[in-house]
């Protein structure tokens, strides 16, 4: 077992974990953050996407011990003070989800994409989320949601900072 310390959604955590444990299982099984999903075992579906030190990673491809000392943002930490993040709002408004299973990962990927490229065209959006599979929407409304979020973020750029759960 190995002792790790990691900040998740702004809250400091410390646990003994198996060295082989994947970050996604730490989030889901130890911290109870079940918004991060597991949709495959080959790192292709992207349902487990989270932010690790400000970069999107597939948390099924990161060992918990590799996240030691890091800062992790999951879907549960994205809304701030009961206010949805503009990307979340846009997915809602544009019907960018159906069953919702891939959605947390897609939203986190969109967050990463829009940080790197605040004004992506359609092709850049499709390329930016190609690591996330969705079987329900055909991606059409996901692209629209990301476009809409980009507009909102351009109007209020402060929102693109990762939200942190405050004062817990």
């Amino acid at each position, binding site marked *: 077992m190995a002792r790790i310390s990691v900040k998740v959604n702004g809250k400091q955590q410390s646990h003994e974990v198996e060295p*082989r444990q994947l970050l996604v299982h730490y989030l889901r099984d130890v911290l109870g953050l079940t918004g991060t999903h597991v949709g495959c075992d080959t790192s292709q579906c992207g349902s487990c996407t989270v932010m690790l030190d400000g970069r999107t990673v597939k948390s099924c491809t990161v060992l918990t011990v590799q996240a030691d000392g890091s800062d992790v943002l999951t879907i549960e930490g994205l809304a701030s003070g009961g206010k949805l993040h503009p990307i979340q709002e846009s997915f*809602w408004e544009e019907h960018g989800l159906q069953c919702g299973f891939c959605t947390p990962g897609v939203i986190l990927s969109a967050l990463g994409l829009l940080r790197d490229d605040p004004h992506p065209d359609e092709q850049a959006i499709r390329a930016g989320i190609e690591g996330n*599979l969705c079987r329900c929407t055909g991606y059409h409304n996901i692209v629209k949601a990301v476009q809409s979020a980009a507009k909102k973020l351009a109007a209020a750029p402060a929102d693109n900072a990762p939200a942190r759960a405050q004062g817990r």
Partner: protein
Amino acid sequence: MATATVERLVGKAIRRREDPRFITGRGTYTDDVKLPGTHHAVFVRSPLAHARIVNVDARRATALSGVRAVFTGKDLADGGVNPIPVGWLLPGLKTTDFRAIAVDRVRHAGEAVAVVVAETAAIARDAAELIQVDYAELPVVVDAVAALRKGAPQVHDGAPDNRCFHWEIGDKARAEAALRGAAKVVRTRLVNQRLIANAIEPRASLATYSPATDELTLWVTSQNPHVHRLIMGAFVLGLPEQSFRVISPDVGGGFGSKIFVYPEEVAVAWLAKQLGVPVKWTAQRSESFLTDAQGRDHVSDVEMAFDASGKVAGLKVSTVANLGAYLTLFAPAVPTYLYGTLLNGLYDFPAIHCEVDGVFTHTVPVDAYRGAGRPEACYLLERTMDIAARELGTDPAELRRKNLIPKERFPFQTQVALTYDSGNYAPALARALEMVGYQRFRSEQTEARKKGRYLGIGLSCYIEACGIAPSQVVGSLGAQAGLYESATVRVHPTGKVTVLTGSHSHGQGHETTFSQLVADVLGIPMTDVDIVHGDTGRIPFGMGTYGSRSGAVGGTAIHMSLQKIIAKGAALAAHLLEASPDDVEFKAGRFSVKGSPDRGKTFAEVTLAAYLAHSMPAGMEPGLEMTSFFDPSNFTFPFGTHIAVVEVDVETGRTTLLRYVAVDDVGNVINPMIVDGQLHGGIAQGVAQALLEEMVYDADGNPLTSTLV
């Protein structure tokens, strides 16, 4: 008091009520349900497609710390676990001994031969690796046409030539006569390749048994929890329904693949009771490829006859349908009643005959997948129409147009049992052609060809039989269940409403669409309405969601209950207002006396009166709750035309979709945003079948398509 105008909600693109939980990570899917003391099941799976199980040695696994138990197929059979039955019978159908865990013989790669239960999934996985299974390899057949040949390896001893059934529909003599008398017969062999549903949420189940109440609770990724309870309880495990609760919480997509009762769910439910601890299994994606029921896999010989004027004169189809190694719940219905009955399409065929051989092979079972039989029929007709247009030297759009059933002919009795209630097909085709700029495209195409660019256009005029239902009809055709839907509308004392529906939402947005319907009919805000689905402990017996039935069948059941609520409310309001019940009308959430709108009571006032019961009409019971079961008299028949414009790189074969136009007549729309979303998803899966996807096995039955790459 003036009647408030309430904005109509049905028909509006209202944002979904379920989304806030999904976009904040607060959905509850089966694997998200955590119970203290949960043990984890991992299945040992056969690497061979056909083999006799000689020995299972689990000694090293059971010795591993944290392992609770290992069970084989024989243990389950001895423990009272029966085979999983098939829910649709055809004359002469050969059923299969479909076990939760194989007892002495495996018939497809990935079939379970043992299950390990351990304190963690990781330990269970380690232990599964330690189990030594000795197999005696047997010959394999994966191709359905080959499986029918004399001397082919046999999948089931009781099914000679691997034939599960031979089924026919239509008039053979008339179809043959039509072919003989035709000016032109177009002949082709079409392959509709095998697909896999691949809902992004892998299947999962979690069971817990309470000795105190003798109640078994199963959380499972199901499109139809009551069907699961009935089949698993009554037939497989012998559990009384009243003490077996099946909860299908948020489900991450189904596309048909989560209709069926699967081996792992049966095993998990049995294990929880056997071991007295909660037991969970969550599929890894690689297991989804090995165990989720797959789709399509037809090989069809088609003969389509035309008269001298290019009108269709007859159709003769012979299909070999690969069913895989076992019959899952509705497998026999898919390549028969959901396929052959759609071969009339939108065209005015004077004669049709179709025969289907359902064939066992050493592959994963095949059952309903997105459209289930109906897309296979549509593809067959539309591909043949294109070939015919080429052979007849006719424009493919014109050939279709001239053969559409004219609108004066409805209701239209097809040659293959169905009666289309209504339709007007030509405008949909015309509109799609106009939207895509068909005539202009043809000249662009000619120009592009001169420059070495290969542009193509493909069109499909489709019809679908939706709202799969009439119980008497499906019963006469072999269904071992009715196909109605249920709904209870429970009005609480303050006028808030809970709807308990037998339909199940796994992405379709019922919490929104059904709320729109209820709010509209009762004239109350959507926020006063809760939709409950997916829990046999709460909802009335209902059949669940597949076959595009929830709006048409489940929604109508809700509507029926609402009408009963209003009728009772009106009678009570009349009593309270001292008016004749015939003089009371209900509008915009208010009961009032016709002609004197000031004399009235709001819906909430009447509801409260129903629960106070201080003053009721003679014979009226207190309370306000109604249940309905809707069993329609026919399917619904949505139709339309889709057109794809593509460019093909003739060097590499790479095909790029340039434009896609869809015109769909789906009837009354409750929420256009949701309907559009469903169409986007359907189009994506259709394009995927056309260009990208196939589940491939090698000759030894090894799945070559085993990851999402």
